[in-house]
């Protein structure tokens, strides 16, 4: 049976990756696509593209807001734990 690892820095790297993904989507202007939540298409978008972009943006945004800080905290806890052991 394969052992599952939790590499050092894993939580921190995940947090940074989510943040970078969100930043890219934000710079691309995908924030506008979330108007599909109110049933309104952003100007110049087709329905499928808007729905897909909105889904991706929402996922990245909630990842940044809800998960990234928790990942950073967990990275901090691991670092403190490792330091106390050393």
């Amino acid at each position, binding site marked *: 049976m394969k*052992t*599952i*690892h*939790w590499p050092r820095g*894993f*939580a921190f790297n995940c947090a940074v990756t989510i943040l970078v993904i969100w930043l890219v989507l934000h710079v691309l202007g995908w*924030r*506008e696509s*979330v*108007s*599909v*939540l*109110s*049933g*309104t*298409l*952003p*100007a110049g978008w087709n329905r499928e593209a808007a729905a897909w972009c909105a889904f991706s943006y929402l996922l990245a*945004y909630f990842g940044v*807001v*809800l*998960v990234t*800080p*928790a*990942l*950073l*905290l*967990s*990275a901090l*806890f*691991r670092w403190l*734990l490792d330091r106390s052991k050393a």
Partner: protein
Amino acid sequence: MPVRLALGGLALLLGLLIWLPCVHWVFRPAMGEVRSDAGIPPRAKELAARQLRLWNDPVAREAELARMRSTNPEWDFMGRAFLVLALAEMSLREPALQATNLATMDFVIEDTLRLERERSMHAFLMPYSRSRPFVRQPERSLFIDSEIALMLGARRLVAEKPGFGPLMTERITAMAERLQQSPALAVESYPDECWLFDHAMALAAFRVADVLDGTDHRALTQAWLANAKRTLIHPLTGMLVSNYTAKGQPMVGPEGSSIWVAVHCLRLVDEEFARDQYRRARRELGRELLGFGWSREWPLSWRDHPNVDSGAVIPVLDASAGGSGLAFVAASSFRDEEFLLKLHTSLEFAAFPQRQAGEVRYCASNQVGDAALLYSLVIGPMWDRLKGGRK
């Protein structure tokens, strides 16, 4: 290695347990930003700036209204009504804004009347308004009449405008006649479809007419209320149902997209009943978690499929975009400040505000959503005057 995995998982769990209860503090506005007993709260100023710019820029306005109309022409109409009501409240709060606001209110009202004249009431109704004949002929929609009457009344409450009085009286008379002639006191908004939302708006418009023009619709209003309490109450929740046939047969149960604005309007004619309905709606539809607040579209005891009124419904939480947007109106009207703050916290968290040059709009919303929100931020003086019977 399993120890490292367990420690990593435990650290993440601990991080989540610490962070999630704190998230709302990042988004929670100060009460002073969203509520003010005198003057206009800063958030309302930002929203109003955006709405006024939209209505004074023909290209931007056309693009925004077209976006909404492609999904639902009703939103274009309701966005106008909420904006006019909001501008009236703002004018009463800050008389210095009257000149600008009245000009925009007049433009919005006249443009609405022009569109209705040129393209009929169906211009603001969903296509199924033509799917079969209205039971009552000639066809009229209470949705259109009530909100136009209320827009005209709100404008006249701020300052009288020649010509608007007769236009309002014509709508009020037509609505009153139809109500009186219906055995079920039910007037259609769509063919054989009557809506609580529109009847509550009509009762509010009657109240405005009584205050402005000295008419007396109290007997008719009381008759409607007595009938509604007898026939339109959902047995499992005690809440008013959303819509019913022209014979007064309920078609669905209570809905967030109807009840929140209905209770705000009913405050003008039966405060105690309206407050009881608000309490029930809060219990059945209002939800709170970790400092955030939202509204369900349907209570637990019955549900429908997500539709154009409910807007998107977020699974698990059952948060409805339409219900939550209109919950601001009721929470503000009934001064439910704790729920109001939680709704605003959710708005800042999940409606994606876009701030620029003193303006704000919410990316997850549209013009009607933002106009309803603006109205909720400034509710006060006009409703107080109407309740007190003062012009």
